[in-house]
């Protein structure tokens, strides 16, 4: 009974968050637009020359994805904190880890996935070489869940603060550095025709590590924030 209950709670909470996102449709599109606009700023600020673009494209797209995720993270727990739903979630007899995972999954589906959908378009805009486009997409597919998982820890720590936004960036961006390094590098390597399996394995390893440890830290941080 308890196993069934836990799975049911996970699915219902996931469904709830997706439903909330759909009913707040207007907000859904903000991180996506941010991603597009930030990427666009680089040709404007640096150079539209395809050679230059190709060199910096991987990094630019990765950084834009990072920042877009950061922007969207605040929604993860803020609304629940404000209306008392977070307390209900934490008072559930089901493990906090499972419930946190449901919310983070919903966040990725709503934020990370759209980024993935738009990336092929941006790849063309940023002159990413054909040979590297699949790698770019793959690194983002592996990396954006890590960004959501690790970012959730930062949000959980700052949800009780009034102006947690700036602090959130400080807390979370250093933790994003390894994902950025391997993700962007993989794309550069693919463009040069070099093998990328090593980098992809590293990203996969980060994902597994984040999946196992981040929800624990997030649940602990939530309980602390709500004390």
């Amino acid at each position: 009974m308890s196993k069934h209950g836990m799975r049911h709670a996970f699915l219902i909470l996931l469904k709830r968050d997706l439903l909330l996102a759909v009913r707040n449709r207007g907000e859904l599109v903000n991180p996506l637009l941010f991603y597009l606009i930030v990427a666009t700023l680089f040709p404007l600020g640096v150079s539209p020359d395809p050679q230059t673009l190709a060199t910096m494209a991987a990094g630019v797209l990765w950084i834009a994805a990072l920042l877009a995720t950061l922007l969207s993270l605040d929604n993860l727990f803020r609304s629940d904190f404000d209306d008392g739903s977070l307390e209900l979630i934490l008072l559930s007899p089901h493990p906090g880890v499972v419930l946190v995972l449901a919310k983070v999954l919903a966040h990725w589906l709503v934020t990370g996935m759209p980024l993935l959908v738009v990336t092929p378009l941006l790849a063309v805009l940023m002159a990413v070489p054909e040979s590297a486009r699949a790698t770019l997409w793959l690194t983002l597919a592996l990396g954006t869940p890590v960004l959501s998982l690790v970012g959730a820890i930062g949000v959980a720590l700052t949800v009780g603060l009034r102006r947690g936004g700036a602090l959130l960036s400080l807390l979370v961006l250093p933790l994003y550095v390894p994902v950025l390094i391997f993700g962007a590098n993989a794309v550069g390597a693919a463009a040069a025709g070099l093998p990328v399996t090593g980098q992809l394995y590293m990203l996969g390893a980060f994902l597994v590590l984040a999946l196992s440890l981040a929800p624990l830290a997030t649940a602990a941080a939530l309980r602390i924030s709500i004390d």
Partner: protein
Amino acid sequence: MWTFIHKLGSPRHFYRISGYLLPWLGWATALLLVAGLYGGLVKAPPDYQQGESYRIIFIHVPSAWMSLFVYVLMAAAGAVGLVWRIKLADVVAAASAPIGASFTFLALVTGSLWGKPMWGTYWVWDARLTSELVLLFLYFGVMGLHAAIEDKRTASRAAAVLALVGVVNIPIIHFSVQWWSTLHQGPTVSKLDAPSIHLSMLVPLLIMALAFKLFYFTVLLMRARTEVLERERASAWVRELARGT
């Protein structure tokens, strides 16, 4: 036995005991610093490659070591505070953060100063300096979180979670940055990667490392004492202290 450990964790006894220890630690630190600096700046011979400018390693390297050591200690103290609710552990963690950040900053500055005679520029994005920079941001995160939460207990618990997450990430970040820097063929700062380091340089280096450790403990005790007074200001013994002296 249990009462002894309990006493050790009691802020009031800590305050008393640290008061006795502090002058000894202070003098020991001063002595070792003088010995180390003398050994490094005066007695050790000039490097055949870098001449006199290498001498900054006697400050740069121990600083870098300490920056990591203090972070690990801070995370460990935070963990103890989280799991066993020992107030003193929270105090140690809170007091350590700025000290560790200062060591990190010192490592960055000395690394940068070393860079000028070596590569003609004040900053290069090499593995060690970049890692230290990210470490500095991690420290700022912990300090920022401490400052942002009003209730000191909650702040300590939150900062402890963050420090533990950081501690897990530090090896990953370090490895990633190192890997990244090898790809870009940048110059490296390392004097120590040379086949072997001469004893006349190694000994002052180790003395400086020990001196820095003692320096950390001295300053930690000083900051911790203040932190304890502030956290326990509602309690009777602190009010007596304030009235008495």
